[in-house]
């Protein structure tokens, strides 16, 4: 089966019902997306498929239509995405395990809604669990990123 991740095409030999999360992690060694719950309750596995944030633990590779972007494809230390810049500026992460998913969700939110209200942030981000409780910094970082986007960064 074919899968395009972060602009690169891969051929994998797995069951069509395997969730792309485990294809990415165990077959392609792309480990930014995390396994947290397996039932779309935590959001740690969030990736973009054609720009839309999805829970990769719920998406079988056989049903995949579109290109996958993971946190590794969003930005890198030498070329950060505006959301990642804000995450670093606000030092959001504690354990950091949920943050790949949080960042992917936030990037998707800002893509659709460049200047989100508090309510829009809450609605979009409440499916992403953070056990360390970094929610206040997540909120602040999203607002910073939105501001930086507005200023044309």
């Amino acid at each position: 089966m074919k899968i395009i991740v972060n602009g690169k095409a891969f051929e994998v030999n797995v069951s069509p019902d395997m969730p792309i999360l485990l294809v990415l992690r165990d077959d392609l060694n792309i480990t930014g997306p995390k396994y947290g719950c397996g039932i779309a309750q935590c959001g740690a596995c969030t990736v973009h498929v054609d720009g839309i944030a999805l829970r990769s633990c719920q998406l079988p590779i056989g049903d995949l239509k579109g290109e996958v972007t993971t946190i590794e494809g969003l930005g890198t230390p030498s070329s950060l995405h505006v959301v990642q810049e804000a995450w670093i500026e606000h030092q959001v992460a504690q354990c950091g395990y949920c943050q790949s998913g949080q960042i992917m969700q936030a990037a998707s939110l800002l893509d659709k809604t460049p200047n989100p209200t508090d309510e829009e942030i809450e609605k979009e981000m409440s499916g992403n669990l953070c056990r360390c409780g970094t929610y206040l910094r997540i909120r602040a970082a999203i607002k910073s990123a939105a501001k930086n986007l507005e200023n044309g960064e």
Partner: protein
Amino acid sequence: MGRLGTITRRTFLVGSAAIVGGVAFGLYKMATPHDNPLEDGLDEEAVTFNPWILIDSEKITLITPHADKGQGVTSMQAALLAEELDVEFGQFETSFGQPSAAYWNTAMADEGVPFMATDKSFMAESMRDVMGGVLKLMGLQGTGGSTSTPDSYEKLRIAGAMARETLKLAASKKFKTPVDQLKTRKAAVIFPGGKTLNYTELAADAALISPVQDVELRDPSEWRLIGKPMKRVDIVEKSTGILKYGIDQVQKDMVYATVKVNPRQGGDLKSYDATTAKTMPGVKKILPVTNGVAVIATNTWYAMQAVEEIDFEWGAAPYPAEQKDHWDRISKSFVEEKLDSEWRNDGDVETALRVGKVVTAEYRSPYVAHAPLEPLNAVIRVTDDTVELWSGHQMPRMLQRIVGNVTGHDASQVIFHNLYMGGSFGHRLEMEHLKLVAEIGKQMRGVPVKLTYSREEDFAHDFPRHIAMGRGQGTVQDGKVEAIDLEIAAPSVINSQMGRAGLTIPGPDAQIAAGSWNNPYKLPNYRMRAYRVDELAPVSSWRSVGSAGAGFIFDSFLDELIHEAGADPMVERIRLMGDEVSKAVLETVAEMCSWGQSLPKNKGRGVAFVESFGVPVAEVVEVTNTNDGIKIDKVWIACDVGKIIDPVNFENLVQGGVIFGLGHAMNCEITYSDGMAEQSNYDSFEAMRLSQCPEIFVKGLENGAKVRGIGEPPVPPAAPALANAIFAATGKRLREMPFSKHIDFV
């Protein structure tokens, strides 16, 4: 890390060790804040030696042996070393290092003695010193109990200063310049006239001389790093998805495993039928493990799918099958023969209870799972001579012994690579998943295996926080709280946890009533008795341990009495407070929130104070009683840790602790039915979501005499402050967590 493994304690006894042209520094003689005569008789080798700083011709590596579960101790340890070493963030790498007795935790003694943190008596201090000596002899390397900062605060600065002075000495000898004319800055020695020489260029010379032992620590006024905002060393990797946790480890030719063990914890496996599972895609092997089965496959998902197709016949749980019977056993344990300790008997409670208005109440604190977002996992490779293990863990030396016992290796043959953890909250103090991966590795000799728990397996085998019940009787008179007679019954978490590690801890378990017996109030009449309930479900240390339950019980009951007396909850707490540092914390939080201002009718505020791990913490919660339920609007928190190392991480940890405390008090519990935990994933164990998160205003004070850690202390006051706020807003008193059993939250 291989090179560090070659540094032996003995090498250091004769000076700094030459390591392929580099030099490692450490402490030969540990300076302690208190002179402890008992330490004099100890074998010198037991005290030392521990390398924290490694410099070679290419780079500076700072060893940060305290495990990082997200609390940011890697940066904290590095900052303490870098402060005196005169290196800047960005000029060094960090490493968790190899497990070593040299990294024994000097601060765990404070929590291991039955004295209040505010007790500075000769007896209390002597016992802390004795306990410190025992831990030193055991070489107990561990992270927990909010001890990383107190353990590191002085020790790592000394280590940094020793290295700096030795590098200066080496430069002095080589270039015939008096040491007192040399300065250091940004990882370089500066000569008179401005010429500089990098530490890396001096490493080989420094390796040839004995490390300078007598160093003087700088005055805090000279600090460049400590107390100022820092950029965490892991923040870029954690914001770009490239940090490799235990679950992300890959070894060549590795196979993937998962397990299913009797969900009735400790119950046996009668039989199983894996006929279907064996034929499923990707499945390589099905192996027996203690009380369960492991599936080995080419992908974690195949293993998890296959294990679900195995039919199991499980044995019974070694504890009551139904939750109500757990409560029943606790309820029946308030009897003389179960008395674990009468911790307090101040004044004359019996007499005081006969005067004034009597109030009685009963409280419950449930089992709660740790459920860190990264499920339990480990990678292992067992060969004839060695066991190599990759995982994130809080007790690196203890696990070497336990894993070696399973595989038939000596602890010294177990090479452990500690890793950043995706949370722990106490979960990664436990050893059962490592015993299982060792059993698997032993059967797969030579082949690297990654074991990953499913979230459901993780919940089923999460040794939760212990349940507790509290019964209070108290009196009020003339608008004041006069007497409290409080009893708390709970199973011993220390007994349960240490028992699994093969250790027995004598004496009473201070955690049964932590947060109650050790509070620094000076009530005219206060009796506090703790009862030890026979073991129920196996339990473990959960962020803040006993204080989360017993702190809720004490503070809630105090609040009830204060309301009964008609007093102001803040004013009366301050009046009753017997410790000045704690009183300042209460006064500060009152000022932060303008306590006493009038609020709209549907709003209410509650205050709570709990001291844990030596940190007094006061929190005020403000809620609105909406048509859809309780909405938590704001939280103000003041606490005192003696010294804040990094104000950014401090604020983040405190806010996270408040959210952790509130979220679990709102809606989390583990209950047992048919001997199994009924909650198996985050849909039934949600805690707080972003939409529910209040504004949280933090103030850290620095009046305390000792430097303390802040990982746990913000948790305990959150639940009682919330319950007290809900009472203020609704008139409804919540005496049982989770509160969602009794009231709705927005």
